């Protein structure tokens, strides 16, 4: 087992290095220059010497090899450098957003579990009935609606409903306050994006839950239980559900990793100051260091989640370790 864990850990290194390589050169292949944008972005007259000075200060005139070595060398000690746009530490800037992104990701995951497990179970138990079709339609609709569209509709609904009920128009807060400081305020802001993304991501989990449960329900021990005359409810609750959950947990785990970096559009609609927004901002500002930092953070989260999932599987199913 430990050997497998070690081997799996070693395999993470080329992935992380590869991602570092790709993002570094991808950014430099993109046209644009942080100094041009910072100094001339509003159309004012800019002195070429000022731009040159800025490029020098940002280390943009160093040879690419030097820049790349600095970047990877920093990564090795988890130092992401300084943002070219704000001049603050990339780690500090990311830390500010990480809290919010993490909370939304957790809440969305909870929403998606709360939706997926009962619906998926219903769908499997009543396979090919109208209940099944209905549940599957709801799930598929979740991935069919463009997420920003759903977000805009939720916000509009809140405005109209609050106006109709209380006479004043209510919108969610637009400034983030940590959960422990003001739970009500915090939740009244984050519950909406969590619902929108949670519903969306529940579609895959519902489908997974359904097929995993269907598979388990055909296993021999379930047949035995049926033969013994146990009620279907008892079989599902006692035996099948537990065994069907593993693949669902896997799917949810991987989705969680995606949620940490993939909320770009939702963050825009709900005005959340999260990692996704920071990422888009930093790319559109040609802020190399910041973009590299966020991408590497997202890659690390993804790679590490996958690692955990693999280890979990290997622990449960020894055959994997030797294949």
């Amino acid at each position, binding site marked *: 087992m430990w050997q497998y864990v070690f081997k799996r850990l070693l395999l993470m290194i080329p992935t992380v290095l590869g991602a570092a390589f790709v993002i570094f050169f991808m950014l430099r292949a993109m046209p644009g220059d942080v100094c041009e944008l910072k100094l*001339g972005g509003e*159309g*004012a007259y*800019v002195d070429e010497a000022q731009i040159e000075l800025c490029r020098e200060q940002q280390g943009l005139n160093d040879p690419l090899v030097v820049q790349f070595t600095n970047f990877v060398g920093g990564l090795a000690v988890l130092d992401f450098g300084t943002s070219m746009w704000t001049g603050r530490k990339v780690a500090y800037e990311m830390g500010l957003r990480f809290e919010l992104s993490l909370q939304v990701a957790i809440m969305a995951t909870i929403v998606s579990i709360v939706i997926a497990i009962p619906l998926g179970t219903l769908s499997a138990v009543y396979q090919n009935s109208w209940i099944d079709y209905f549940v599957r339609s709801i799930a598929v609709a979740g991935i069919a609606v463009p997420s920003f569209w759903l977000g805009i509709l939720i916000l509009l609904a809140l405005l109209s409903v609050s106006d109709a009920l209380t006479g004043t128009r209510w919108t969610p807060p637009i400034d983030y306050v940590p959960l422990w400081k003001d739970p009500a305020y915090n939740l009244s802001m984050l519950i909406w994006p969590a619902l929108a993304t949670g519903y969306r991501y529940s579609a895959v989990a519902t489908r997974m839950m359904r097929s995993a449960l269907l598979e388990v329900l055909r296993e021999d021990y379930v047949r035995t239980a049926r033969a013994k005359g146990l009620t279907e409810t008892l079989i599902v609750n006692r035996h099948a559900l537990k065994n069907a959950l593993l693949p669902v947990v896997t799917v949810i785990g991987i989705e969680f990793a995606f949620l940490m970096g993939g909320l770009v559009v939702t963050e825009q609609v709900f*005005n959340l100051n999260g990692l996704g927004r920071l990422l888009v901002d930093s790319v559109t500002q040609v802020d190399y260091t910041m973009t590299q930092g966020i991408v590497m953070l997202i890659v690390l989260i993804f790679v590490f989640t996958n690692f955990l999932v693999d280890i979990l599987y290997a622990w449960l199913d020894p055959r994997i370790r030797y294949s």
Partner: protein
Amino acid sequence: MRTKMWKFALGAVAAAAMTTGAVAETPKSGGTLNFVVGSKIPSYDGHIETTFGMIHPISPFYSLLIRVNPDNPSENDFQCDVCSSWDASADGLTYTYKIRDDVKFHDGTPMTAQDVLATYNKIVFPPEGVASSRKAFYKMVKSMSAPDDTTFVMNLEYPSGAYLPAMASPFNYIYSKKDLDEHGMNWHQKNVNGSGPFKFVQHQPGAFVEGVKYDGYHHEGRPYLDGFKAISAPKMSARVQAIEGDRASIEFRAFPPKQRDDLVAALGDKITVQESDWNCVLMATPNHERPPFDDPRVRKALTLAIDRWGGSEYLSKIAIVKTVGGIVFPNHPLAATEEELVQIAGYSKDLEASREEARRLLKEAGAEGLKFTFNNRGVDQPYRVVGTWLVDQWKQVGLEVDQQVNPSPVFYDILRKTGEFDVSIDFNCQSVINPIADVSKFLPSAGNNYANFEDAEIEALYDKLARAGTFEEQRALMREYETMVLNDKATQAITLWWYKINPYRSYVKGWKIAPSHYLGQQLDQIWLDK
């Protein structure tokens, strides 16, 4: 104090009658103002930044030497901020500012003329390795000094109508000499120590900036607010909703007309609207190095095809542009009147005749049915809207145009660095109205003219204009310059001037719309009537 500046009406329209009632009211103290900002803060240093994303949240922390009067921002009505008076010598070469002795920085240090001197030295004569974005505005400045703690003197090379407006730039925050000496010239990029109406509390990058009332503020009785919070909201729909749900009271840049109508329809008299012409304009810049745009006939056809008077009507329903104008900010005394404008190619009220002429010119130049690419910037308001309009206008004279909407970095790269474009959108957006300086944009030698050409005639004419002594002389030369640029040589094609619309919560009082979103942002004049 001598007030030698022009007074002129800018046609600032208060759409709602309620604003006029505000004159008689006495300001109330207290309350926190929440406002939304659609852009981000690159750094806190006004001397190097150029964006309203920095001006809106940071200006309340600082004072200026002179400023545009926030109670009357629609005119070039300059007033002292940390000075008590200023005087110009008869030859217009020496300006003497008397500095107040009761101004204190937030850290307790008293402000003297030495601080003003250190600040303006950083702006006008930055040492090697220190950036200063508006250095070029002060070309006429020869030297400066602070003979004593309450006197600051500037000597000019030549008298210039562009000098005083440049001094009122909202970016020229007065820094403490002590900070500059102790911490260096870059300290203010990440730290705040000003003498403005509000003290810095905190900044959460990407989220908000918070300020609290400074009790030692030098303008008696101000500020009225206890504090403010500038909340970042890059998406326009989020900003509109924030005002509708009363999460924020105001947005200081502008909303398009539909958003104004939304808010008024939803909230009635809880919303007040102020509107004004805006000192920004978009233009279509052809690349003179690329045939057939080296041919003035083709360039003239481009501007002839544009229906400016019609666009002023229907485009103003969907974009933040409205007013037809030449190269000078509309309604300014130096700007062309309507009679003068219609003489310029593309400004005639007879659209069909203009377009017929455009087709004829294209045919003559052998550029009938020309296909080209239009480089646009990926910002909805008003770039993308105006771009889509231009493409349609050119289609009317048989031109086939592809619009390429690029993210800002790509757009700038093409416009400024590679110059690989046929025709590009370009813009001229300034703060204090300063036509003689502002129209330098059209000089072939200007750093921000991207049309890629050289022209000694234009240069010579502008040089005469910049040194013109009397207003009449300035105005005559300005007409000549405008006709040369827009009509005879058709170097660039002006579209419509921007139009600033600010709908906000009616309980916000004391705020007057300015012709620029950079002006009047210290917030000392604002109070809440709750």
